């Protein structure tokens, strides 16, 4: 690894990337190293198998959903930019960032973090978490001793609590509302990405 500047120069459009995501050059370099480590064949992009090689992620109950979140619908590869942009969701919120009215919302805003979590449920991207999708996630996250009936009642209860417009599904707004008391920044941030 050469000096920081030379590595940065090798990454195309790195200025834009840093601007959009808010990562410092040091972080970009580390992420780039990690990207290269995952991209064993040096193709410059990652495909799902590369993610699958991460053992700990395989042990994660929602590991495959997390992997799926990296790939935009229809695409089967993710390049470095997209990789960093997704990870930017997990930066802790910059408290002292000036609020410019015209600039787009930063990727790691509370709302975007919530959207990320929402997408993990809503795999068919219809903007709603259906009962089915909820059940799937529940099954993934719960041990095998839980009966189907119990799962279904939990799912029913979840929808009942959150679903305000009675359409038997949770929309993003309802999702956001149900989590209004939760410190999302704390929950959905990775400190070392600050």
């Amino acid at each position, binding site marked *: 690894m050469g000096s920081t500047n030379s590595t940065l120069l090798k990454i195309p459009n790195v200025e834009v990337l840093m601007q959009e995501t808010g990562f410092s050059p040091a972080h970009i370099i*580390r992420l780039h190293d*990690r990207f290269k*480590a995952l991209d064993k064949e040096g193709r410059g992009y990652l495909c*799902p*198998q590369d993610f*699958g090689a*991460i*053992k*700990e*992620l*395989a*042990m*994660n*109950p*929602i*590991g*495959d959903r*997390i*992997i*799926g979140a990296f*790939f935009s619908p229809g695409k*089967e590869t993710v390049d470095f930019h997209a990789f960093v942009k997704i*990870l930017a969701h*997990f930066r802790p919120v910059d408290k002292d960032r000036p609020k410019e009215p015209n600039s787009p919302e930063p990727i790691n805003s509370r709302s975007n973090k919530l959207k*990320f*979590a929402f997408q*993990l*449920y809503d*795999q*068919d*991207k219809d903007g709603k978490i259906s009962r089915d999708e909820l059940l799937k996630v529940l*099954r*993934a*996250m*719960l*041990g*095998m*001793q*839980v*009966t*189907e*009936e*119990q*799962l279904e*009642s*939990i799912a029913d*209860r*979840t929808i*009942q*609590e*959150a679903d305000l417009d009675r359409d038997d599904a949770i929309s993003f707004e309802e999702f956001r509302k149900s*989590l209004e*008391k*939760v410190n999302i920044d704390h*929950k*959905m*941030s*990775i*400190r*070392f990405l600050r």
Partner: protein
Amino acid sequence: MEETNPDPNPGESTQAVFTLNYPRIQIPFEITLWVLLASFAKIGFHIYHKITIWVPESCLLISIGLIVGGIMHSVHEKPPAVLTSNVFFLYMLPSIVLDSGYFMPTRPFFENFGTVLWFAIVGTLWNSIGIGISLFAICQIEAFGVQDINLEENLLFASIISAVEPVAVLTVFEDISVHEHLYIVVFGECLFNDAVTVVLYNLFNHVAAIEVVEAGDVFLDIGWFFVVGLGGTFFGILFGFVAAFTTRFTGKVREIEPLIIFLYSYLAYLIAELFTISSIMAIVTCALTMKYYVEENVSQPSCTTIRHVIKMVGSVSETLIFFFLGVVTITTEHEWNWGYILFTLLFALIWRGLGILVLTQIINPFRTIPLNFKDQFGLAYGGLRGAVSFALAFTLPDSIGRKKLFITGTIAVIIFTVFIQGITIRPLLKLMNVRKTNRNLETINVEIHKRLMEHTVAGIEDLCGQWSHYYWKDKFMKFNNRIIRKILVRDNRPESSIVALYKKLELQNAMEILDQMSGDISAAPSLISLHEDRKNSPKPRKKFLSSDVANMHELLSKNMYKIRQRTLSYTNKHALPNDITAREILMRRHTSLRRSFRAGSLHGTNAAKMSQKYFSLPMRQSLHSGFPSRRLGHTGDGDTESEIDYPSNRPTIRHPHRPSSTAGMPLRPLDTLKNAASSVNTVNEQNNVQRGNRRSHLSSRRTFRFRNYSDEDSEGEDQKSRSSPHAWVQEPQNSSEVQHPLIGRPHWLPQKPQ
């Protein structure tokens, strides 16, 4: 136990046919009996499971010891004088410490390294010195009659009773949801605490023997303290590397691999003892260093053996010590001094509590996750004294005038903390928990979403790889990967059981798919349409009672997978870590990937829905009917070999239950399908004898939907399967395509029930 020598032919001094030669076997025999008795005690506790929840195991062991001691006392028998200094320090302590060190989860440990060391070193020093000085102050009071104990002896005693043992706390923590980092702090604290205590013990022992203590000596001693600690660490690392290097070449002699581990650790310990540096640090660092590389080099059975043996020996040592504690309590002469002992108890509690409070305040700003009050309470109140304290007291040199008083005092402290604190900590923590977490105010929504977010963050962290704020740690990891691993790790290394399982699943699926080339049919479409129908029928809104909701909360908190499950499984000190949940997760994921691949190939049917449902019990089936065979297979299944390598043993057990568990479909109209599926499975069962457990019916059902699979396409397919995790959940737009195959082969699938 006398020696009898019955002479069948009285009057003749011929060779007796039947003689008893007890003295010859006495020592090994008695040791065996004691160990056996201790093991029976352990077995006995677990027969009634509830006991171990409420009463820590150390309590039970001491009680049994007390009973046995009582028996021995009444027959005027002396306890075996086995617990000498040498036996403890050379045989028992290394086992206990190796057990703790080997099972220490390294990553959280290093993340909390500062805190652990802080509490262990500074905490123990604080405790020892605080208690020592206060006791010395008490000694000055004439009324207690202990004026002859000087400062050094007080300090010595104080250092003995500062050694805490976390077992009871950890088992309680497991049930109450406690952060992972707290486990590590408690676990690590105990470990290093032992090291510090032993060092202090030796230090004060040495000092107590000296008549005159000068200021210069004190500084020398402090310097010696550091030398001892760091020296021990250095030796440990050295031996760890050497051990790892040796295992690189044991590819052909797998039988001796476990032996190498034990020998090197023990050697590290002994050599450290030779140089009178901290042997505990040596053996712990040896185990930590070694584990990482060795587990990559050795075969899976060796790995299991190593773990089993370490657990076994450590557990036995600890058990024996507690046992002796009980026995000795009854049988030795005690010197009881109300004032001294009561004040000891008081000071032990106060200083520990104060210590934790103060130290936490200082260290919290440096921690990423600060320790809250509940954590601190757990740490402080959970400071039970245990085996090490007792052994250290028991092996005090006789030159200490008040040795008996010290022994009595130590026993008193241990019994008090173990019984009273050990039994009450659980209700107290539960009380605090209930007040603090306000679980009932959180909605089910929030609970689920929070857990999802935690898993997400954990996943992303894993994705980012090992990373920390510390530049040098990253550098070390790079150095490690590039250089050290090349030297120490063999190239063809066997994988961990999980990875092996994963690969095996992949391979089996590939093979099955090849076998069943013609399988195109899927049950999926009918299921999906059924499911659609069900969904469309409007359901009345269910009313949930608050008790239902409370039950749900309970269910969720008990059954939701914890983050990075593997770490927590290490904390049960008396049991082996198991991979069960990891395997559940892995198998589920694997199934869903396989399904998604097939679903992907069929342009996104919702076939995968079925598989997801597979892993919960079918509706209206109780836990017992659906699961026993599966459970039998997994619980206590410490060795992973049985599933992977010898699955042929399993089919018979599981077979009768398979139909119910196979169906796994929660939809009511599926009874017909269940039967169909089960008949297919029976057929497949006979065909695929290898697949002994539920993997087989996963795969057998999966194969139906399969179009053309060929080896060349495997790459592409794998890619496809994994690239479309979101594809498989799409609503089936093209189910028409799938229905044709269904119609094509109706013989095993009945008409779509409407």
